[in-house]
């Protein structure tokens, strides 16, 4: 119990190594009951390893994990009654239909036949999969597979739900629908532990977020608190013709109150504590025969905070994830 909030998940100093690589390096955090907690980090940060340890699919080398005050390391099977797990890979049975898959997953929790059939139909309705209920899971689209995997994860009404990269690799419409469903579950009081590499998704959905990089938690806070330090920061992004690298020093001399960052050839990022006058900057560049194509004001966002704290480029993180096929 902290500040009147009950702790659903308590993690203390857990570590996990694979061969010589420390996948998770002494992390601590609490997830409160009814909270939607985001676990944000690049590929290989330790997100899936952490979920595996929290759900009993991996054993930490050291540290403690408590789920609803139950020691998860000693009693993983007791904990598994309380939790629902949606892995990053849709691992249902391709030979079974959507309906059969849901009924089978319900049976693993000891739910009786009539109850599981009613629940399966209810979930197929909620997830808009009624028409595909009798089709084999193997023939589903990626978005449908994700939806059915989430439905299977909540078939037994778990009080805590682990979602590992729920929207990775699916179309925009399905991702939007899934986010709505996640929000609905959260509103109904389900504690949700969500790992993602989509910062906008974490920002939109989560109450609190932990940034994890190289197996270590760098920062945990609520979205407003994370954004607070950069709220007063003004940022401008200028897209222009190549040739700006050699002008950096001159720009810094001309605009001493601004921080000039060359993100890549042709992309300038300018930060200041006051509103940035665009005209003088554009004139400065054009006078030096650099064509300016675009000037964009960047709103303070979680993405900015993440880049500030971790130094990781968001685009590279996304690309890396998509290339890897969506596993962490």
């Amino acid at each position: 119990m902290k500040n009147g909030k009950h702790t659903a998940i308590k993690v203390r100093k857990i570590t996990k190594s694979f061969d010589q690589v420390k996948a998770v390096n002494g992390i601590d955090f609490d997830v409160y009951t009814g909270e939607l907690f985001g676990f944000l980090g690049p590929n290989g940060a330790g997100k899936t390893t952490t979920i595996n340890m929290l759900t009993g699919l991996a054993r930490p080398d050291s540290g403690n994990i408590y789920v609803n005050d139950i020691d998860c390391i000693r009693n993983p099977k007791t904990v598994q009654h309380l939790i629902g797990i949606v892995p990053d890979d849709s691992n249902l049975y391709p030979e079974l239909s959507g309906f059969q898959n849901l009924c089978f997953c319900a049976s693993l929790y000891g739910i009786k036949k009539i109850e599981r059939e009613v629940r399966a139909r209810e979930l197929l309705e909620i997830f808009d999969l009624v028409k595909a209920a009798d089709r084999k899971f193997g023939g589903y689209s990626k978005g449908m597979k994700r939806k059915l995997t989430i439905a299977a994860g909540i078939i037994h009404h778990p009080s805590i739900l682990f979602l590992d990269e729920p929207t990775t690799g699916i179309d925009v419409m399905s991702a939007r629908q899934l986010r709505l469903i996640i929000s609905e579950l959260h509103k109904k009081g389900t504690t949700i532990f969500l790992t993602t590499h989509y910062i906008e998704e974490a920002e939109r959905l989560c109450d609190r977020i932990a940034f994890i990089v190289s197996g270590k938690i760098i920062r945990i806070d609520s979205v407003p608190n994370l954004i607070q330090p950069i709220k007063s920061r003004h940022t401008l992004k200028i897209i222009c013709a190549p040739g700006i690298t050699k002008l950096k020093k001159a720009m810094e001399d001309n605009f001493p109150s601004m921080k000039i960052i060359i993100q890549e050839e042709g992309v300038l990022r300018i930060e200041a504590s006051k509103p940035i006058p665009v005209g003088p900057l554009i004139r400065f560049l054009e006078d030096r025969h650099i064509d300016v194509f675009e000037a964009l004001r960047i709103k303070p966002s979680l993405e900015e905070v993440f880049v500030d704290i971790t130094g990781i480029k968001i685009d590279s993180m996304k690309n890396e994830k998509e290339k890897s096929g969506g596993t962490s």
Partner: protein
Amino acid sequence: MKTFTAFWNILKKDFKTYYLKPPNISWGIIFPLAWTGMFFIKSGNNIESVQSILPGVVALSILFGTTSLLSVTVTFEKKNRSFDRLLLAPIPLEVLMLAKTSGAIIFGIINSFVPIIMAAFFIDMSHVAWFVFIPAVILIAVVSTFLGLFIAVAVNEVFEAQTFSNFFRFPMIFLCGLFFPISSLPFFLKPISYLLPLTYGADMLHGAILGKNSISVGINIIVLLFFCTLLFFLSLRNVRKKWIL
């Protein structure tokens, strides 16, 4: 009750998804048929030889039927990660592995009756000691299934499971007294025979069908139960060590 619901549904799902598929049904029929035919022809079309080869054919049908399927129901499911779903379910690991192996045990027992039914057309089966034959078939099915499980959890790929299985299965044909008495083996191979569980199952079958067993039924049962327990718990240990990282 909840655990039983899970157990029953895993078994039912495996039967539906794997065992009742036409390739497996035909495997269960064709394989014993081929063995019987092969040994029948080899013995010079002597009808009486059917009886002498029957214990070996029954044992082989069970051994190959059970061990082949575990690589699919366990190794394949682990490979495509659907096995993780079972590991994440609140079912004790022992119950889960029993549920995953019960289908193969039943399949092995059904397989054993194919050569028996075929033989019934050719020879008089009234002398068979069924009270020994039935426990022998069940114990061979269980021990072979657990041997298959041990192999299935020791490897990562389906083809590795098949290759590794053959490494055990084919020597067993010659070393376990199925068709040639252990006494006729070279002296240095005899100790190996007694380290293989099928030796004891085959001996029980020889006793039940031909009335010629070299070890007492009680000892055969105890040794087979020992092998079943050993292989099952070694498999569980491997699952805990390799799959629950």
